[in-house]
């Protein structure tokens, strides 16, 4: 029964989305406040029904209702509860319902935060809700026609197929919702951009409305990508954190464009520069989300994310993608003559910094897209199977990022419209000196030499020192730093966070040690300044797996530090095996040990890495996300304060 309830809820959500779209567009066109209010009500209702469908599905997973096909295929009674829940989105059908849920949440948030009285901005909000509803309709139809999550299966099996053990991981329970919060959040920026185009008004109003959503999306993407990379680091057993896998690229591209977008939005809102460009970026950012979803979900890529699927789904997403890219671009071309030009600015100004940022980030996204699509195109066109390896990305994206990092500290220090490059250089003299010292120091001690490491070390210092300089300069003196506004802190933290990540990259690029040996019990191997002694291996039984578990004693400088237990697990239900590496971290450095396969004579392959500064990579990402939270929080606080002062003003008026 519950399955049918979920299906019904999705159909009702579809009906309400139609109302939301029609009422949004018609209400805005007629200037009718009541019709526009209806659109907002429909958005809230649609969200409630999608949430009902989502929780119905979750209930089916928790109770192991195997009469629902998706549950039978992806769940199992022996699975821990958390993975029954995360199993909801660990497959194509469920992940699309999660997508709908988040899309509905953003629409509801737009409905609740946009102005409701007479005025142009109410129309803008109504049109944005209309566009948002069109996206929801497209995906609801997609789910109902091609990926019904509630499809029944008769007779129900006694036991389910289980979830891919690689996905049974706390890091991965968190990664997809975060990523979707980012992907789908960009739809809100897209909807406001489209609404602004429909209105033929590219002033700052749409940017002001869309910026909190863009910031939320960027923050969530940052966290989602970091979670994915962390998961890959500790589960895949390769000791690396980024593989330039096409699926990783699919999430990196929207992040690059979203980063460009939040910067150009800042300029458009503040000074009116880049008016049309920001519109285009908002459209592009969501298009990249859709491209990412298409690449990942259509099965054209070879990865864990390519869930079992049929080609109709790929075609359908491709169709949505095509419409979502061409329709707003056509609208843009049509309205372009009516749009007002961006405000001018001097060459030496913060806008120029943002321009550099935007050029480098969009160029990087284009390069990543080329590398990701090239093998697909070549295969489709000529049947030649190739793959594009990490060296391609190292040779292209990393130099662009290095140039970006050089320019980054200048942005916040320069003034809007009319800055002074010489003054900025003077302010940054200490940061520059610090960066140079670190660069030379790394150059002197890095053995073997690594260009990436030396550059990342120097630039990381430059970014962090640049952020500190900016804070100090704004405050005037150190004691007053704490009186600075949230905006200054969020910019400084975001830029410094990238610097911290750069340190992590530098550390792993230069001082990474790697060792692999066959150890029989009692034998030791050396790695960096650690000694690893394999004491024993034993067979252990987990809740839904059996494992070979090694006990390895770690010594450093002759002293025993700890005993670690890397495992090799086998999941009988899924007929899968995974390696569970052991990571002993001191934050400054990770000791990473993987248990390989057994060899003749009772030995086991043991692979160990020492990754100095590796945790900094994710700490940096967390700092960047924190910057995002501060920026969002500050905006919400401003809203609440202005709402309060408005009510207060209203009250005094009424009293008089």
């Amino acid at each position, binding site marked *: 029964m519950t399955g049918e309830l979920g299906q019904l809820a999705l159909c009702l959500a579809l009906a309400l989305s139609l109302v939301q779209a029609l009422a949004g567009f018609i209400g805005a066109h007629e200037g009718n406040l009541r019709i526009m209010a209806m659109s907002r009500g429909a958005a809230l209702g649609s969200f409630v029904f999608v949430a009902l469908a989502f929780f119905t599905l979750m209930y089916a997973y928790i109770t192991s209702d195997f009469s629902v096909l998706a549950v039978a295929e992806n769940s199992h009674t022996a699975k821990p509860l958390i993975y029954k829940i995360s199993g909801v989105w660990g497959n194509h059908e469920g992940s699309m319902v999660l997508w709908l849920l988040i899309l509905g949440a953003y629409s509801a948030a737009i409905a609740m935060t946009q102005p409701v009285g007479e005025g142009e901005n109410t129309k803008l909000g109504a049109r944005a809700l209309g566009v948002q509803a069109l996206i929801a309709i497209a995906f609801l139809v997609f789910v109902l026609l091609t990926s019904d999550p509630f499809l029944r299966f008769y007779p129900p099996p006694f036991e389910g197929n289980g979830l*891919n053990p*690689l996905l049974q991981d706390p890091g991965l329970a968190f990664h997809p919702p975060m990523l979707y919060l980012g992907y789908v959040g960009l739809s809100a920026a897209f909807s406001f951009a489209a609404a602004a185009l429909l209105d033929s008004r590219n002033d700052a109003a749409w940017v002001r409305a869309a910026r909190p959503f863009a910031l939320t999306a960027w923050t969530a993407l940052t966290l989602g990508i970091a979670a994915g990379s962390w998961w890959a680091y500790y589960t895949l*057993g390769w000791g690396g954190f980024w593989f330039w896998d096409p699926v990783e690229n699919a999430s990196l591209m929207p992040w690059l464009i979203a980063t460009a977008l939040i910067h150009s939005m800042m300029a458009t809102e503040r000074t009116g520069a880049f008016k049309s460009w920001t519109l285009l970026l908002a459209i592009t950012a969501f298009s990249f989300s859709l491209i990412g979803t298409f690449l990942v979900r259509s*099965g054209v890529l*070879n*990865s*864990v994310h*390519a869930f*079992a*699927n*049929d*080609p109709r789904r790929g075609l359908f997403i491709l169709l949505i993608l095509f419409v979502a890219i061409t329709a707003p671009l056509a609208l843009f071309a049509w309205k372009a003559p009516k749009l007002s030009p961006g405000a*001018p600015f001097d060459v030496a100004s913060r806008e120029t910094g943002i*321009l550099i940022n935007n*050029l*480098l980030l969009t*160029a*990087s996204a*284009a*390069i990543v897209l*080329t*590398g990701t699509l*090239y*093998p697909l195109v070549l295969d489709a066109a000529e049947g*030649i*199977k*190739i*793959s*594009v*390896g990490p*060296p*391609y990305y190292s*040779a*292209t994206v990393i*130099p*662009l990022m290095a140039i970006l990092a050089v320019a980054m500290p200048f942005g916040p220090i320069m003034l809007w419209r009319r800055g002074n490059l010489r003054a900025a250089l003077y302010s940054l003299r200490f940061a520059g000196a610090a960066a140079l010292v670190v660069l030379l120091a790394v150059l002197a001690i890095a053995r073997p030499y690594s260009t990436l490491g030396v550059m990342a070390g120097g630039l990381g210092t430059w970014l962090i020192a640049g952020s500190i300089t900016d804070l100090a300069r704004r405050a005037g003196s150190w004691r007053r730093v704490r009186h600075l506004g949230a905006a200054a802190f969020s910019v400084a933290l975001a830029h410094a966070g990238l610097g911290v990540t750069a340190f992590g990259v530098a550390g792993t690029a230069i001082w990474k040690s790697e060792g*692999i*040996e*066959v150890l029989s019990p009692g034998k030791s191997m050396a790695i960096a300044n650690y000694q690893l002694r394999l004491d024993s291996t034993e067979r252990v039984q987990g809740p839904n797996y059996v494992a070979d578990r090694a006990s390895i004693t770690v010594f450093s400088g002759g002293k025993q530090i700890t005993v670690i237990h890397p495992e*090799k697990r086998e999941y009988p239900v*899924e*007929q*899968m*095996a*995974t*390696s569970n590496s052991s990571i002993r971290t001191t934050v400054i450095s990770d000791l990473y040990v*993987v248990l*390989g*396969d057994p*060899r*003749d*004579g009772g*030995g086991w*392959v043991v*692979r160990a890495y020492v990754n100095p500064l590796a945790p900094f990579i994710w700490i940096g990402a967390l700092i960047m996300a924190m910057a995002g939270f501060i920026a969002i929080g500050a905006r919400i606080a401003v809203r609440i304060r202005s709402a309060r002062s408005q009510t207060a003003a209203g009250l005094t008026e009424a009293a008089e």
Partner: protein
Amino acid sequence: MNPKKQRRLAFAITLVLAGGGAAGLAIYALGQNTQFFRSPTDLVEQPVPPPDRVFRIGGLVQTGSVKRDAGLEVRFVVTDGKNSVPVTYSGVLPDLFREGQGVVALGKRSTDGTFAASEVLAKHDEKYMPPEVVDALKRSGHWKEGETPGSL
């Protein structure tokens, strides 16, 4: 030219230079870093890549061919049913590396005709078969219909 037009021109030139530079960089790097895929039959029938060129091979791990001795090195044979290539690899094999299952290896050709793999990739879960392997098996006529390609 008035200053406004001048600024627009400068902007356009920057854009074109930046775009062109990025495109040039991308094309150059693509030329340097694409890894071709060869099935065992391709290696017999087509010109062999030069010894220093990294490329990928794929097929099934021949049943009974995996030799692990006491040391690190593992030897196995990759086959597409028609031809086969001996492969050597030192390292930790992926968890789902099994005899009779699909595998893709990245590496170079050694002088003795074996393939020295620097990386071995197996599937991510039990349903998955790398598309290159499916393709190689189809071309050699050893693909069993009824197995679901691509989905996977």
